[in-house]
């Protein structure tokens, strides 16, 4: 029987680091998914390292650019959580749709978006992935099957079910073959308290929808510690169990573990068409957004998690396996630094959107802005990729 209270004594007694972990998430060693071993090619592990370093460097440059006022509005950086996006996205296939919340730069880069398109978006430039019309919280990449960046907490959870439902419908109802795609839907631990999340889980469980909900549990929804806002914080998988959905607890600070567990979960989801729920334990090193002084947690707690830096952990694993040495690491770091620096320069040089952009992409069809004149101006639409059909309603009678 699972206790309703947060059992911080138990296994954590005696080990200070474990006590800090237990304070943040509850004592969960006994819930951790059993280890799995998968064979991973060394090149692939180096790719993980590359992607995580790229996200880290990119986010550091973002913070700089924000201070320089090149980035406006809200900006949420992913530093500390890199192993989650990289491990999860590497564990699924490129054709599998991915959707996430507002802390989305890491997912965009892990999905393969060129950093320059991501940076230019935040700079509000035409070169941005959404032509500067989305911003930091709304990264979209059709070519890389990234269905956004969504700003309202929990809003993406029914969408994630819809993406997986869509895959299944297209394959099975339209094309008459077995579906083999899964959708990855990332959410923060704060989203667990939104109605949309619970409705999405109920529907996913009910309709056998192959969607994997990855909770990036960093212990805080903005400044509220998880146990202060969420019941059963030490055992979030209980919530999924209530919807008949298998839950897993995974160490999100170790990319090898994330990859191995997610590979197994995704394979099962693909084969059974059943949803899954993952309590991915991670930690954001920076504030919720750029304006957060992190007064709600201690320096000691941050230090404990910093010693478990996912990039450092992978580096050690790679060195121990003889895959990485100083030279290799240095040249990788240099290439990444250059690439991100170029992304900033490219974004600086990218023009701001023309005033025409204010009125395009409101409708796919050729409705323009509402001007109060006889008919909407026919200057919208046409150039976007979202057209699904050719509408022909010129005449009333066909």
């Amino acid at each position: 029987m699972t206790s309703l209270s947060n059992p911080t004594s138990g296994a954590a007694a005696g080990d200070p680091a474990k006590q800090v972990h237990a304070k943040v998430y509850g004592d969960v060693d006994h819930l951790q998914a059993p280890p799995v071993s998968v064979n991973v090619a060394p090149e692939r592990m180096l790719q993980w390292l590359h992607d995580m370093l790229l996200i880290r460097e990119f986010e550091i440059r973002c913070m700089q650019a924000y201070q320089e006022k090149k980035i406006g509005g809200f900006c949420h950086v992913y530093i500390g959580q890199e192993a989650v996006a990289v491990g999860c996205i590497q564990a699924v296939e490129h054709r599998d749709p991915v959707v996430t919340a507002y802390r989305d730069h890491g997912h965009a880069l892990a999905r393969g978006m060129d950093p320059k398109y991501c940076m230019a978006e935040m700079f509000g430039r035409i070169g941005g992935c959404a032509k500067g019309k989305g911003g930091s919280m709304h990264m979209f990449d059709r070519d890389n099957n990234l269905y956004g960046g969504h700003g309202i907490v929990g809003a993406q959870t029914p969408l994630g079910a819809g993406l997986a439902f869509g895959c299944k419908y297209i394959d099975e109802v339209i094309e008459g073959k077995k579906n083999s795609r899964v959708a990855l839907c990332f959410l923060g631990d704060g989203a667990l308290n939104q109605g949309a999340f619970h409705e999405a889980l109920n529907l996913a469980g009910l309709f056998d929808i192959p969607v994997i909900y990855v909770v990036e549990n960093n212990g805080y929804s903005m400044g509220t510690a998880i146990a202060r806002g969420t019941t059963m914080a030490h055992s979030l998988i209980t919530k999924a169990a209530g919807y008949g959905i298998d839950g897993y607890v995974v160490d999100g600070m170790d990319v090898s573990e994330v990859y191995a567990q997610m590979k197994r979960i995704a394979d099962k989801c693909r084969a059974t068409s059943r949803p899954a729920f993952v309590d991915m334990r991670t930690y954001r090193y920076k504030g919720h957004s750029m304006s957060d002084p992190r007064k709600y947690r201690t320096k000691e707690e941050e230090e404990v998690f910093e010693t478990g830096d996912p990039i450092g952990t992978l580096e050690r694993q790679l060195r121990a396996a003889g895959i990485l040495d100083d030279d290799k690491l240095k040249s990788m770091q240099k290439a990444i630094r250059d690439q991100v620096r170029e992304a900033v320069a490219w974004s600086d040089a990218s023009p701001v959107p023309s005033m025409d952009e204010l009125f395009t992409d409101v409708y796919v069809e050729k409705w323009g802005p509402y001007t109060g004149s006889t008919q909407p101006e026919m200057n919208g639409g046409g150039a976007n990729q979202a057209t699904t059909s050719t509408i022909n309603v010129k005449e009333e009678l066909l």
Partner: protein
Amino acid sequence: MSALREIEFRDALREAMSEEMRRDKRVFLLGEEVAEYNGAYKVSRGMLEEFGPRRIIDTPISESGFAGLAIGAAMMGLKPVVEFMSWSFSLVAADPILNNAPKMLYMSGGQFGCPVVFRGNDGAGGQLGSTHSWCVEGLFSNVPGVKIAIPSNPYDAKGLLKSSIRGDDPVFFLESERMLGNKGHVPEEEYVIPFGQAKILREGTDCTLASWGRPVHFCMEAAEELQKQGISCEVIDLRTVRPLDIGTVVRSVKKTSNCVVVDQSWSFGSPGSELASQVHRHCFDDLDNYVHRVHTADVPTPYATNLEQEYLPNARKIVEAVRSATYNL
């Protein structure tokens, strides 16, 4: 030639959906009680039998969940039709239908559209009380990125629903429980009706009556009564409020010099106030009087029959408004 075929409003809606589902496998219907129950208002009667449970999908009472699911599916290129048993229930799905569907194309820089149709009963039914009687056009017509259709008769309902389903943009399709049993002529041959084209239902010379949805019938009643009193009304059914065919109304008002707008949503910040404002702008030198408006009373919907009837627009109030607008005739 055989007699004109007459069918009920609900049958026209079903014909539109069934024809589009036969034509395009990407189209499917989901909502509460749409399949095994044959539709809470029998709009989808028989569709489960024809299309099966993969395409006619019963959902739990979970509007936010299934509206969001439909939007995700639409982003994958499918064309869901979502039935809200009542648009009053769409308020718990406000985030997906207002924050996701209309903005997805814009905030993705044109990469992802949402070709989804949300449809269901709008407006007061029969004594349903305050929470079940919403006229959501008052709220939702404020939002760019959606198209809104409010048909008044079976013919328009079928043609507009077919073009809604074929279109690439999100559509809010507002029906009325009070009209689902109304019969009207719907031809056997296929047709579609484009958005943004008003229809002149009755020609007249003294005053323009502009409306959409159920109050169009009250306008026709009022016009008949006013004819007896020697006032000739031109009745225009706007059919869609986004886009809004202001041109047809303006051309009419330039002829009649008087205008009454009839809108069953509340008056403050409504499609009716927008139309009146545009008529003032475009017909500033043509009007003999300010544009009069008939709305529902600015109170929550009452239950008692006599109060509810007085709350809604009706022929008497329209006659009074026209008499006031045309007092110098």
